[in-house]
């Protein structure tokens, strides 16, 4: 079963545990500046929003890469960067509409989320379930359940029944 990361900004507190887990997994140090997932703070609105690659089925980055350094992991569905092929040309960073593939100054290659091979560390590090890893066909299930509850509540509290 293919799984997807689901992000629920309502739950995010901006703690950056996800960024540390990501950088530790990939770089061996706690370093938010090298994280593949980023939490954005909208100060005036009081909102925190984690954002990362959604693993497009038909991926701009993959199509743009002139050296075929980005490939599909058939098990996880992730688009993964092959570091030995990547030449650091950054064309993928231009083609990606979401900005979720980025150049890493230290290595001279691009970096992006690879779902940690099917066990994304950001999701397990998140203390508030703002990031979860679920059945790719059911990413809207929690929102549907929430609205189903609302609908149910409304239907049992109509003026006629009151």
């Amino acid at each position, binding site marked *: 079963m293919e799984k997807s990361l689901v992000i629920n900004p309502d739950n995010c*507190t901006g703690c*950056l*545990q996800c960024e*540390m887990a990501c950088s530790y997994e990939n770089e*061996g*140090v706690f*370093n938010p500046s090298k994280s593949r997932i980023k939490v954005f703070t909208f100060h005036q609105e*009081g909102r925190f929003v984690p954002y990362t690659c959604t693993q497009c089925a038909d991926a701009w980055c993959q199509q743009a890469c002139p050296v075929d350094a980005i490939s599909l992991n058939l098990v996880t569905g992730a688009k993964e960067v092959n570091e030995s092929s990547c030449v650091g040309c950054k064309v993928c960073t231009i083609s990606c509409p979401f900005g979720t593939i980025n150049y890493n100054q230290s290595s001279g290659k691009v970096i992006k989320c690879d779902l940690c091979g099917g066990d994304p560390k950001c999701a397990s590090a998140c203390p508030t379930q703002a990031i979860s890893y679920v059945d790719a066909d059911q990413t809207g299930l929690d929102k549907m359940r929430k609205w189903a509850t609302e609908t149910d509540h409304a239907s049992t509290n109509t003026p006629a029944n009151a």
Partner: protein
Amino acid sequence: MSWTGKLLRINLTSGEITTEALNDQWKKDYLGSRGLATKYLSEEIDPACDPLSIENKMIMATGPLTGTMAATGGRYVVVTKGPLTNCIACSNSGGFIGAEMKSAGWDMIIFEGKSPEPVYLYIENDKVELLPADEIWGTSVWNTDEWLHNKHQDPLLRIAAVGRPAENGCLYAGIVNDLHRAAGRSGVGTVMASKNLKAVAIRGTLGVGNLTDPEAFMKAVNEGKAVLADNPVTGQGLPAYGTQVLMNVINEIGALPTNNMKDVQFDGAHAISGEAMSEPRKSDGRPNLTTNAACFGCTIACGRISTIDQGHFSVKNKAKYWGNSGGLEYEAAWALGADNGVDDLDALTYVNFICNEDGFDPITFGATVAAAMEMFEAGDLTLEQTGGIEFKFGSAEALTQSVELVALGEGFGQDLALGSKRLCEKYGRPELSMTVKGQEFPAYDPRGIQGIGLNYATSNRGACHVRGYTVASEVLGIPEKTDPLTADGKPGLVKAFQDITASVDSSGLCLFTTFAWSLENIAPQLQGACGNEWTVDYLLEVGERIWNMEREFNLKAGITSADDTLPPRLREEAAKTGPAKGMVSQVEAMMPEYYQLRGWSEDGKPTDATLIRLGLKG
């Protein structure tokens, strides 16, 4: 190892910037952050110096767990000699700049001397520069933050800055980082401004690693996170209500100081409580609280993000304050609210915004206004002296006018900027200042919670709750319940809390973890990061060593056992209502046993045997 092993020394007089290796022995003896920075300060300055003179130094320091994935590992401290207290000052802050400093490769930054012109320090990993700050001198923290982000075109820059009160000599100015987190107490911001240093702006991209045993570390971190999540205080109470979860609790047990500590219960407590912050306002239907927020790495997330009703008198036509910003925590809500008899939640939130915007301590500010209110009502302060402000208990208008005057350094704000001790002395009523060693009390009345009174009296930075938070035991039953109304056994409890706290503060973790964690949870994290020698027993020894080192600093600064006491009101005027009705603080009765347990002489000095046992004397 987890320390970067490097510190920056910034000579502001000459502009010279040098790097040094961290003293290997001292980090073993004092761990990091509070302990290690205090060791450096003790070695480098004369404790008797004038805190606002060129002789004083100011140290920003992280701990070995700062910048790691350990839950709450984002803390840093500012250590200096404090101008409010003339004692050792150590103010601890969260937010993100501590971790950024560590990620830039620095355990500590030592500032010495005084710059001839206003400057700010810019750090991008090992690129470190002093740059001109003329354009931001004379402006607020929030303006400085915006200016620096624009100038460097870097939204990820982390900034700590001082506001106008610090520049104007307000004795309780703090250093605000990340817009609304603060090294808030004892006037550390006043010291920073006295050196013509406006801000520190940091971008760190090196990361924090160098762990002794990464696998053991991650295991201990994950176990620690699970304990925090499962604990009712850190897993539910603090995320939902923040520290404001305490307002109703402390009022019910009759330990909520009210109207400059004349009373111990406040009728308006619910209106300014954490629960009230979550209720829809009558005026606009929105709650005061928008969301909770975390500091770096924190899985508790007690921070409050709040708004003020746009129709509220304090922000009418001031669109700048209509968005979200850092909301009320318990100590601020108490000092601004109950201690002044003000139950207007939006007014308190506005005052709190201003304290963040211009960088001053809402506890000392609120308690100073309370002293002014008592003196005004008693006729010691006249309308002429206050510039026409009616300082009456319950007046939200007097409070909001006061905060603006202190921010701008104008009119009666110049008197309020002195803190209550000097204000009350100036107007002939020194006994009305609710302070120890010149610093105002936080939000727990020593008549209703006996142990905390002893902690206030003996705290090395003047009255303070976070040097030895016996409220955890006496009120919340953590780690075990003790009777708040009895003095029996409290000297030992106070000493234990003080020593453990010194250790936790020095690790880079947040003290709030100790609602759920004991040193049994913290030691494995430190061992994974720094090595197996960091056992529970050794951490207790380090904590006690730090406490005694701070005491030695204060003794050299001129503090005596006569300063280890509470104002007469708390020792002589009994609580009028609640469970503690009829009681006073028994601080004097507790003191001899406290000194004895500490291994101090009858006049409060560590004995030679104690100093030798702790390695503080050869």
